């Protein structure tokens, strides 16, 4: 957690902040537009501020807001939020090895602050969980730096967006900067042919299944892409055995 002295004084903390800076920059417009969108789609200013501060998940906020405003039952709103957040369940599976040495509550708080850019940058820098206490602290400090930079930039820009809601027209399309940001991260992950295959299968599946309710197209696309890559691995292994 980034408010702990042993973490924010560690040199890796600064490195984490620096590595996150470009993502934070790209996220500015996106966070602004999220703040604007919450108010524009019918939340009161207090509700929008409260949501920004406690939910801290842009995509699930944007998915849930129209449902709340339409008076959908609570379970539908929560189910939609859960599905949009399912990718974090996948991330938590990966992060488990890095965090299990922590006691339960610090672990859960660290998890709460772990979003898309922090997860991607963290696992890119540290391909494997640490095996010494010193390296564990290094990893924790780097993650804390990423989380701190991401949280402050996201929260402040979202709040600014809520404040400016009536001044910025949605038609400017500034939110597209957020998509370009995700696209850049996606390219940085395309480090093997099978990962490229994963991106292609997921992209096509997400478009074809777009009509599914509750953003389930995203979950389906991830499952299909991973399944396709595991099959391709098996196929490659079998071919190598024959050769």
């Amino acid at each position, binding site marked *: 957690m980034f408010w702990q002295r042993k973490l924010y004084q560690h040199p890796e903390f600064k490195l984490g902040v620096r590595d996150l800076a470009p993502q934070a920059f790209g996220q500015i417009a996106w966070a602004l537009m999220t703040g604007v969108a919450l108010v524009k789609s019918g939340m009161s200013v207090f509700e929008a501020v409260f949501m920004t501060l406690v939910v801290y998940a842009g995509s699930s906020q944007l998915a849930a807001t129209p449902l709340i405003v339409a008076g959908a039952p609570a379970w539908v709103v929560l189910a939609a939020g*859960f599905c949009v957040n399912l990718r974090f369940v996948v*991330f938590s599976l990966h992060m488990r090895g890095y965090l299990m040495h922590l006691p339960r509550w610090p672990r859960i708080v660290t*998890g709460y602050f772990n979003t898309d850019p922090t997860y991607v940058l963290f696992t890119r820098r540290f391909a494997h969980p640490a095996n010494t206490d010193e390296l564990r602290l290094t990893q924790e400090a780097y993650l804390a730096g990423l989380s701190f930079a991401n949280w402050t930039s996201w929260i402040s820009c979202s709040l600014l967006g809520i404040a400016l809601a009536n001044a910025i027209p949605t038609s400017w399309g500034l939110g*597209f900067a957020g998509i*370009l940001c*995700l696209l850049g991260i*996606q390219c940085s992950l395309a480090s093997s042919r099978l990962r490229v295959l994963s991106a292609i299968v997921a992209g096509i599946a997400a478009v074809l299944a777009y009509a599914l309710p509750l953003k389930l197209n995203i979950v389906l*696309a*991830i499952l299909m892409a991973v399944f396709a890559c595991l099959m391709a*691995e098996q196929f490659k292994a079998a071919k190598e055995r024959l050769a």
Partner: protein
Amino acid sequence: MSSTDLNVTDGWTLWVILGLAIITVVTRSFFFLSNTEWHLPHWAQRGLQYAPIAALSAVVVPEIVMTQGELIATWQDARIFAAAVGVAVYFAKRNVLLTIVLGMAVYLPLHLGLGW
């Protein structure tokens, strides 16, 4: 139920928002909520190699090639050009910030100037 008056806060909405916050906590910590030690099956460990890029692609691609749930039917869409430039810039310079800046430099004139 939610209020129809736009600037009135109601208790029901605040409870739902709190519920969404709990969803955030639960999904982000899902596999380390429990203290019990357990090991992942091999296929799941392999699958983790491919899941993050799949999740990003599943979110990003529809945002670039779809409008209101339909595949776009025209090439006159600022997003396609901006995304193409963004990808090219990334692989030329390996820099995410430059991807965003040059992508937006293509997007904004086409979108605001030509209305694409």
